[in-house]
């Protein structure tokens, strides 16, 4: 049957099981938009292409499916770039479809022409400039396969306008894709798996480091079985949150720069580290020369280039984590490590006198308080979306998750402005789930225009704005390391409640713990989008993220949370 390039795009999106596309039309892509209504694919009109990219990413992280964003040529395409880099670093499966100027004028600096395949070369897993309509269906099929398989990642397809207009005989591509240079790995090398099992069976103080790979490979159940059988405690990365139930007795906490002291100490004291689907980012290792000095190291990753990239390991296993765990399970002994767990519990208990949650009411509101209140109200079952900065670290610390695919946050790139649009994508992926977007006042103002999208699409997103009147994480560093020189970090903010109400969204303001609790209770049951501005401590202990590993320090050399005086400690 004859189909135009534009129709083939939608035929193929339907074929790939795409439910929704986030985008903005424009001159070079409007021809593709034209037949959209004939197909069973929803389009969500965003207010900025960066938000379309982030929304597709939020959708992908929650649904486990490939997210799709669409934009026009030139500035439409370049606006996607921040979102593409974000997805690349965090291995999110996204397909971006961009319009391009017509083939005959390619390379002539035509109106809204930009070399988007060139620009995105280093930040995509792969990309395509479609030369002829006859190859379009195959390219889209390949793009989805590449995006979702192996180590997932973003793929961009640039389609010149004449290719969208041209018609060709269309048949659905063959199921099997054979790319000679692309073969995702499956099980691990049995000899290496046996070597890992021997180390595991001999370990006295083992620790698992769980990354996002646990969730991406569907290994949550296998990980739990493995951890329980070998009685191995589990520390996790920011993106690894929820891959192992945080309420589980073997769960430690987030590791790294703002990880818990007892988790980092466990890593430093361990005699065996099992790194599962994580990449030893500089945010989790601290000083590499003194990282886990006593530990033998096993690293399992989908991406061979991650093995021995940062940390030299004893057993590098190139494989799909779920399959490798299934290989390992019958080879490892059922073990107990009572002394090791008791040691960790002793370290863990020391936190009670430091945790800000245990401080008595003093009239101030700190971000951990309201995040804890949101956890209480939602019983920890919300989809947790964050922006980037202090509130992001507090959200990781004070909103424990027991299920995979419930955290949506920009880890590797730390992209401010990610939170609000990503929450839109998360809510679209799970219309019935309670989505809470925890944002800072700095990042919120980078993409707040997409409040309009929330209203237009009737999405019941809950937004918790932590307003401290600063670019808080930078201010904290200025306080610690730059002699309190608050250069370019104070923010003169608008009246956020008025602003949000102007979009037609119900808004509350809270300035203390009681108001916070009440506002959260109301927003929790509110039918429709809701926004709460929490005016939190601006400076001082309550405004700093602890614990913290300063730059250059070893992982256990942390600035701890300030001690609470004993008599003030709440029971």
């Amino acid at each position, binding site marked *: 049957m004859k189909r135009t390039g534009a129709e083939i795009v939608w035929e193929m999106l339907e074929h790939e099981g795409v439910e929704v596309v986030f985008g903005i039309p424009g001159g070079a892509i409007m021809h593709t938009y034209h037949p959209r209504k004939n197909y069973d694919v929803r389009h969500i009109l965003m207010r900025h292409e960066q938000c379309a990219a982030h929304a597709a990413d939020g959708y992908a992280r929650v649904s486990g499916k490939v997210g799709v964003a669409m934009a026009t040529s030139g500035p439409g395409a370049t606006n996607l770039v921040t979102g593409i880099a974000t997805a690349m670093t965090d291995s999110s499966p996204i397909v971006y479809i961009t319009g391009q100027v017509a083939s005959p004028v390619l390379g002539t600096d035509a109106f809204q022409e930009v070399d988007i395949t*060139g620009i995105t070369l280093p930040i995509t897993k792969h990309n395509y400039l479609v030369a002829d309509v006859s190859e379009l269906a195959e390219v889209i099929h390949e793009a989805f396969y590449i995006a979702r398989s192996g180590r997932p990642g973003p793929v961009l397809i640039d389609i010149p306008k004449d290719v969208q207009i041209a018609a060709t005989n269309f048949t659905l591509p063959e199921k099997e894709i054979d790319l000679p240079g692309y073969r995702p790995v499956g099980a691990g090398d049995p000899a290496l798996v046996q070597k890992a099992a021997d180390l595991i069976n001999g370990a006295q103080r083992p620790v698992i480091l769980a990354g996002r790979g646990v969730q991406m490979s569907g290994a949550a159940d296998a990980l739990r079985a493995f951890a329980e059988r070998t009685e191995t405690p589990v520390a996790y990365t920011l993106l690894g949150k929820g891959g192992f139930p945080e309420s589980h007795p073997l769960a430690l906490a987030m590791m790294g720069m703002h990880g818990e002291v007892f988790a980092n100490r466990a890593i430093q004291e361990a005699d065996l580290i099992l790194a599962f689907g994580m990449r030893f980012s500089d945010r989790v290792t601290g000083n590499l020369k003194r990282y886990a000095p006593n530990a033998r190291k096993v690293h399992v990753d989908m991406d061979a280039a991650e093995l021995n990239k940062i940390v030299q390991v004893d057993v590098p296993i190139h494989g799909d984590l779920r399959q490798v765990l299934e290989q390992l399970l019958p080879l490892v002994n059922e073990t107990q490590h009572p002394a090791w767990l008791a040691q960790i519990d002793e370290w863990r208990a020391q936190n009670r006198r430091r945790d800000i949650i245990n401080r008595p009411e003093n009239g101030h509101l700190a971000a951990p308080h309201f995040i804890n209140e949101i956890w209480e109200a939602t019983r920890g079952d919300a989809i947790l979306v964050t922006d980037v900065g202090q509130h992001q670290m507090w959200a990781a610390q004070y909103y424990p998750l027991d299920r995979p695919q419930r955290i949506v946050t920009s880890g590797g790139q730390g992209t401010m402005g990610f939170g609000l649009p990503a929450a839109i994508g998360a809510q679209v992926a799970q219309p019935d789930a309670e989505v809470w977007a925890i944002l800072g006042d700095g990042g919120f103002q980078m993409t707040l225009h997409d409040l309009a999208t929330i209203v237009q699409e009737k999405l019941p997103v809950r937004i918790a704005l932590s307003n401290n009147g600063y670019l808080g994480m930078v201010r904290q560093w200025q306080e610690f390391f730059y002699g309190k020189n608050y250069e370019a970090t104070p923010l003169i903010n608008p009246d956020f409640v008025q602003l949000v109400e102007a979009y037609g969204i119900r808004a509350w303001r809270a300035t203390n713990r009681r108001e916070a609790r009440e506002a959260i209770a109301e927003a929790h049951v509110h039918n429709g989008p809701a926004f709460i501005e929490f005016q939190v401590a601006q400076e001082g202990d309550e405004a700093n993220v602890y614990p913290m590993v300063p730059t250059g320090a070893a992982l256990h050399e942390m600035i701890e949370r300030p001690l609470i005086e004993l008599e003030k400690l709440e029971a």
Partner: protein
Amino acid sequence: MKNTLIALVEDKPGVLTRVASLFRRRNYNIESLTVGHTERDGISRMTIVVDSTHTDAEKVVQNLYKLVNVIQVEDITEQPVVARDLALIKVRTEGGSTRSEVMQLVDTFRARVVDVGVDSVMVEATGTEDKIDGLAEVLKPYGILEMVRTGRVAMARGGAGSRE
């Protein structure tokens, strides 16, 4: 220390750019890169020489594999190989006596003169990089006007073809 890598890649637009972009963003030190057709349609072959005092050749291999258009990569540094560099060197020859001196040197290096001008000759030399370096060194006093080198191309000795 130098490592020689052979990469078989799909002969598609932009593949060289992808490889070059990878080396730039990963901050790899590359001595030379040559690319050309192979015995098979649609497949090009790259010979990449990595300065492995600064760059871990194994990481280059693993990262090349991440490019969808890269089919196979092999580090042939430890294998018996034939490695060749080709150079064209234009040498100043003022007066007939220097010309014959240059031609003698060229003979000694088993190179050949491929063009003769009024006051210059063009020399074509094929061989290992060391040999070409040596030739360039002895020609330098006469005045090298221009030089172009292809960079190393290499192939493993023996019967086996390139795997896929």
